[in-house]
């Protein structure tokens, strides 16, 4: 499967295993502009897979309500660039629902999917990677897969997780690579980074599309500089796996972080600062 098919497969499994699961968003009914929901309406009915009016804040607010009522909403934002009309609902409501309700009510069953990142022809409004905005919001989980196998497993984990999750799908990867993906249900752990290449001289950390860029860097560094890199895919941006990175940096002594988003206030800054603190104050040696 390629990545968009693995997303469809994860949604299919969710709709099958949970009769209260609903998949909706702009143009979702006919299969979605990225074809991630193809065939699902025919299979599960228009009550469970449906178009919504064109309003991101409406989609997010409506989805929160479904989750509060105990259903499992899987909402699509057509592009991550257009998630901002829903920012208030996500940051002030979804993220804080459990906390402000004293744990009496929550919207933990909520998952929001959004295609993110640059493809090459999307210009400024079809290319952004807004994960850092959401990483500043306690109560949310933010996840970005690097390929089809991870996409299905991590999306399934988000859908099953008892906290509201945002799942950003790097849209350049939708059709770029094919991997073996089980047709059946499986999930991968959230908040666990994955060491993809072991090395001794420097730790490289990325997520989503950057993992593929960094794989090339690993090769080039070895060939041209005789530098032995360790490569880590962070996978979950919030709450992130500090331990795996700290352990690696404790070994290599160096850290390089690559993300597709702007430098200032980017999530790389958070990692760089935290890892320095953690290597000084917490015993990861």
């Amino acid at each position: 499967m390629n990545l968009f098919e693995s997303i469809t497969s994860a949604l299919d499994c969710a709709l099958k295993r949970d009769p209260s699961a609903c998949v909706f968003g702009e143009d979702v009914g006919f299969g979605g502009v990225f074809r991630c929901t193809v065939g699902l309406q025919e299979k599960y009915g228009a009550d469970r897979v449906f178009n919504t009016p064109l309003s991101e804040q409406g989609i997010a607010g409506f989805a929160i309500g479904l989750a509060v009522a105990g259903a499992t909403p899987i909402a699509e934002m057509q592009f991550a660039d257009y998630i901002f009309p829903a920012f208030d609902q996500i940051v002030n409501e979804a993220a804080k629902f459990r906390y402000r309700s004293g744990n009496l009510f929550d919207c933990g069953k909520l998952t929001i999917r959004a295609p993110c990142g640059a493809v090459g022809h999307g210009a400024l409004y079809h290319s952004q990677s807004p994960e850092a905005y959401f990483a500043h919001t306690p109560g949310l989980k933010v996840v970005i897969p690097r390929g089809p196998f991870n996409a299905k497993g991590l999306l399934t984990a988000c859908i099953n997780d008892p906290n509201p999750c945002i799942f950003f799908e790097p849209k350049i990867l939708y059709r770029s690579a094919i991997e073996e993906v089980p047709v059946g249900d499986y999930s991968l752990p959230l908040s666990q980074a994955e060491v993809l290449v072991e090395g001794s001289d420097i730790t490289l950390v990325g997520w989503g599309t950057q993992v593929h860029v960094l794989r090339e860097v690993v090769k080039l560094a070895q060939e041209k500089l005789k530098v032995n890199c360790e490569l880590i895919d962070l996978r979950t941006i919030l709450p992130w796996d500090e331990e795996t990175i700290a352990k690696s940096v404790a070994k290599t002594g160096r850290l390089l972080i690559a993300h597709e988003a702007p430098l200032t206030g980017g999530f790389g800054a958070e990692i760089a600062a935290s890892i320095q603190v953690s290597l000084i104050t917490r015993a990861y040696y």
Partner: protein
Amino acid sequence: MLKVSSLLNIATKLKNVCSIVNMAGYRQYSQNREAVVFPGIQSHYTEEMVFSDIQNEEKMDTFRIMNLKGKVINKTMEPDLSNETLVKMYKHCIIHKHMDKIMHELQRQGRISFYMTSRGEEVLQTGSAAGFHPEDLLFGQYREAGVIFWRGFSVYDMISQCYSNNSDLLKGRNMPVHYGSKEHHFVPMSSCLGTQIPHAVGVAYANKIKNKNLCSGVYFGEGASSEGDAHAAFNFAAVLKCPVIFICRNNGYAISTPTKDQYSGDGLAARAKSYGISTIRVDGNDILAMYAATKQARELAVKKNKPYFIEALAYRLGDHSTSDDSTVYKNAEEQEYWLVQGDPIPRFRKYLQDKGLWDDKTEESFNKEAKKEVLTAFKKADKQLKPNPNFMFTDVYKEMPERLQNQHQDWRKHILENADKYPLANHDQF
């Protein structure tokens, strides 16, 4: 030269175009005029160039059952409420009023940080609350104490929330008057205006697909109804056919902003109608009308799986909150008019008196009783400790993530090392 097959093709296409006119949504609705063929539009052509305005159309009426003197105008519309229920409703309004008065005082004394009264909106709240099924999940804005109170959330529960004491179900995390309770099917209120409106729509959709035979209900001010969330919610509810009741409390003001600076057109009712929602404008000072309209809307919403909208008119007799002085922006004559003519509680009382259910003596004795109930609750709430400070860190996630655990431990360490500088004795535990 045209081939036969392409001729056939053109014929089929033409036939399709013609048959479109007969499809649902394209139907010609006037015999003599030419219908517009366009997806989602039912219209016909005109050769007159007219820009349409709400001013040119008839303004929506306001539904009432009793007049200002508490007299039922059309007996057939009088709801079938038992004497016992009517008296219970009145008592709720009276207790609510006393609670507001006392809590307002407590804020002035510095015992609570903030308060908002419902003065003038008591019967709107009680009447509509009584029209719902007790398990219909409700959402409020903040000025809906009477709604959750009707469902059995006690005066003590409310005062505890305002105190953020150890009995506050919300663990001291919200400003005063942000009530909520799972047991009473009332979602805790959020300070963010309008955000709860689409939530109620989502709940309604979930109820619909689970065949629960429940509706959801959501209260909001006429000010909040200018938020984008409100419009998204109205549209979603209408398009996705959700059994939800919108109750817009139009009380004339959003803090200091009068309705003339809030909207043009014919109020909220006209807007709701334009979304395709069945809508009624109700005299929110008429408890019978509020009850009847909510009950009817509730029944139809569940039966027909569609939304209903109630624009309830009830002038805000009090200030916006304890941080506000409305004499600065309110017209004194207007305020006076509503105090004398429009106070909904004496109006309800007249109705009960005419029915022989209430008199001056019961009024006097119940006022005493109500005051006592509030004061007893206040004294109990006042004695409670504050919540466990560790609640600052819990319920952010279902389980506390490792990095938050670390922050929590760092914070605890700091507090314990400086325990003499923190009022830990006021708190339940640490």
